[in-house]
C-alpha cells in the first residue's frame, strides 16, 4: 500500500511537468465520398502552416527560425515530389492580397478550429463526445466549413482544397536526459519532443470536410529532406485515390 502511494505521488509530481505519451493516428473519410485516380479533379493547396522548435526541459516550446525555414522548404519539395502520385492535379493557391487575404486567413483559422474539434471530440480517446462516438461506430464523418469556401481566391478553378499543418518540438538535451533519468529512477514515462501533423481535404463547392488525417506522433525529421519526405508520405498516404505507397513499418 505504501509503495503504491509512493508511486502515485511520484507519478503526480512528474505529470505536473510532462505529458504522457500516446501513439495516435487516425484517418476519416466523409460517407459516400470517393475520389477516383485520374479523375481529372483539381486540388488547391494552401500555404502549409509549419512551426518547428525545441522542447525545453520543463516542456516549453522554443521556436527555432532556422529549423522552421528549412522544414518549410523541405516540405514544399516533398509535396512537389508526391503531387504526381496523388492521382489528381495539384494547384498551388495564389498569393492573396487585401480582402482575399482576409478571407483566406479566416478560412485557415476555421479549418484549424474544425480539425482541432475533430481530433479532440471524434478521433482520439480522452475527451470524445458521446454523439461522436456513435458517429464513429456508424461510420459517420460530418463536418463542414460552410459554402463560403467557394469565394476563396483560386476556388473557381479547382474542385477541392488541401490544408496541411505541422508542428514539431524536438526534445532538447535537457529534456532527453530528464526522460532517461525519470525512466531509470522513479520509472515514469516523460515525453520528449512533440510532433503533430494533420492534413484535410475540403469540397470547394459545399465546404464539407471530406477527408482528415491526424497524427499526434507523426514520424520524419522535417529538418532533413529525407525526413520531410517521410512526413509528407505519412500525411498523405491515406489520401483518397492516391498512389502513394504505405511504408511497411513506421
Amino acid at each position, binding site marked *: 500500500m505504501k509503495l503504491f502511494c*509512493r*508511486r502515485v*505521488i*511520484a*507519478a503526480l*509530481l*512528474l505529470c*505536473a*511537468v*510532462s505529458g504522457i505519451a500516446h501513439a495516435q493516428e487516425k484517418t476519416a473519410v466523409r460517407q459516400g465520398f470517393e475520389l477516383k485516380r485520374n479523375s481529372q479533379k483539381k486540388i488547391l493547396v494552401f500555404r502549409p502552416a509549419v*512551426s518547428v*522548435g525545441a522542447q*525545453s*526541459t*520543463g*516542456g*516549453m516550446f*522554443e*521556436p*527555432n*527560425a*532556422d529549423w*522552421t*525555414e528549412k522544414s518549410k522548404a523541405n516540405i514544399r519539395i516533398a509535396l512537389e515530389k508526391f503531387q504526381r502520385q496523388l492521382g489528381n492535379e495539384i494547384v498551388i493557391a495564389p498569393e492573396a492580397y487585401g480582402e482575399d*487575404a*482576409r478571407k*483566406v*486567413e*479566416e478560412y485557415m*483559422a476555421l479549418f484549424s478550429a474544425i480539425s482541432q474539434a475533430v481530433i479532440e471530440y471524434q478521433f482520439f480517446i480522452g475527451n470524445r463526445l458521446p454523439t461522436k462516438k456513435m458517429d464513429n461506430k456508424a461510420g459517420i464523418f460530418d463536418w463542414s466549413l460552410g459554402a463560403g469556401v467557394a469565394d476563396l481566391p483560386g476556388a473557381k478553378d479547382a474542385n477541392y482544397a488541401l490544408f496541411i499543418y505541422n508542428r514539431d518540438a524536438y526534445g532538447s538535451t*535537457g529534456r532527453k536526459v*530528464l526522460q532517461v*533519468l*525519470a525512466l531509470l*529512477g*522513479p520509472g*515514469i514515462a516523460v515525453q520528449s519532443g512533440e510532433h503533430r501533423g494533420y492534413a484535410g481535404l475540403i469540397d470547394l463547392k459545399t465546404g464539407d470536410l471530406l477527408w482528415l488525417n491526424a497524427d499526434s506522433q507523426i514520424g520524419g525529421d522535417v529538418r532533413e529532406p529525407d525526413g520531410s519526405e517521410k512526413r509528407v508520405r505519412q500525411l498523405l498516404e491515406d489520401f483518397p485515390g492516391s498512389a502513394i505507397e504505405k511504408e511497411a513499418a513506421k
Partner: protein
Amino acid sequence: MSLFHSAVAGALALTSAAADKQTVAPPPPPYAGVYQPQGVDEIGMWREDDESERKLAASALVIRDEKLNAYVRNVLCETVGADRCRSVRIYIMREPTINASMSPNGTLRIFSGFLLRLRNEAELGAILGHEFGHYEKRHTLNRFKAARSGTDLLAWTALLASMAPSYDARRSYNDLELSVYGSLYRFSRDNEREADFLGISYLNRSLLRPQAAASVFQGLMGEFEASARAKGLKKPNFSKIAFAASHPPDAERAAYLTLLAAPAGASRDNGADRYRGALAPWLPAFLSDQIKLNDFGASEYIINSLAASGWTPTLWMARGDLYRLRGNPRDLVNAAEFYEAAVQLDPTLADAYRGLGLSLIKTGRPSDGQAALRKYLELKPDAADRAFIQMMLPVQGVGQ
C-alpha cells in the same frame, strides 16, 4: 539558476527605483537604431511573431480606417520620437476591453476599448510610450527566458522529489513551485514598472503633458469602483498585489507616475480636443460595443466622463441604450428621457427615435411610441429591422 539572479536583480532595481522615486524620470537612453534579433531564441521568437503579424494583418478584428490609424501613429511618433516610431506597426483592434500590447518584432496592438476610455492625446501617448518601453527593453524575450529557467528547475526538482517520494519531498516541491511562479509574476511586474518608467521619460521629453500617465490609472480606478458599486460589491483594493498579478496595482502606478512626471510639463497641452475629434466617427460604435458588455456601472462612468465637457446627441443616445438594455420599468422611463434629449439636439438621429419608440411602447405610451417609430422609418427607410418595426405599427388607412 539565472531566474534567481534575475529575481535578485529585479529586487535591486526596484529598491533603487524606490530610492529615486522622488525625482523626475531621466531622459530616455539614446536610440540604438534599427534592431535585428540575435541568438536562436530571439530569432525564433521573431519568426513566430512575423507569422502571427501576417495573420493579424488579415484579421477581421483590425480597424482599417486610415485616418484613425494615421492619428494614433502620429501620437506614438510625437511621444517616442520619429526615429523610434519607425520600428513600429500599429494595429487597432475592435475589442471593447482595456488592453494594449507590444510584441518583440515591433507589432503594437491597441484595443478599441482602451481608445474609448482614454480622454486625451497625452493619455494615449502615455499608453503607447509604455508599450514601446516593453519593446525597447525586449521584455518578451526576457520573460520567456525566465519562464524557461523556472520550469526547467521545476522539472528537475520534480524528478528528484519523485526519487524520494515522501510527503515532505512533495511539500518541499510545492513550496518551490510556489516560489518559482511567484518570482515569475514578480519579474513580470518589474518589467511593467520599467516600461512605465521609460514611457514617462518619452512623455517628459515630448510636447505632451506627462501628468496624463497617472491620470490614465486614476480614470481606470474610478471606472472599476463605479462598476463594483453598481454591482453592490465592496470597493476594490487598488494597492493590493495578488499572487498572480502581471501588473503592479493601479494605485501604485498612479502614485509613482505622478512623481516621475516633469512638473514643468503640467502647463503643456493635453490635446483633448484633437483626440475627441479623431475619435468622433468611431465613438457611437465603441460606445455600443461597451454597452453590450453588460457592465452598467462601468458604462455609465465612461459615458458620464465623456460628457464632462458637454452632452452630445451621441452620448445621450448611448445613455438611453444603456438604460433601455438593462430594461427595468424604471430604466425605460429614464431611457425615454435620454433619447428625447438626444433628438432635441439632433432631430435627424434615426436610431434615437427607434430607442425612444421602443421605450415608450413598453412604458404605457403606445401612441407616442408609434409616432417615434414612424419617424425612425421615415429617417431611415432602408433600416435592416424595417419589417420588425412595422409589426409594432397599426396599419394606417385600413380598418381592422
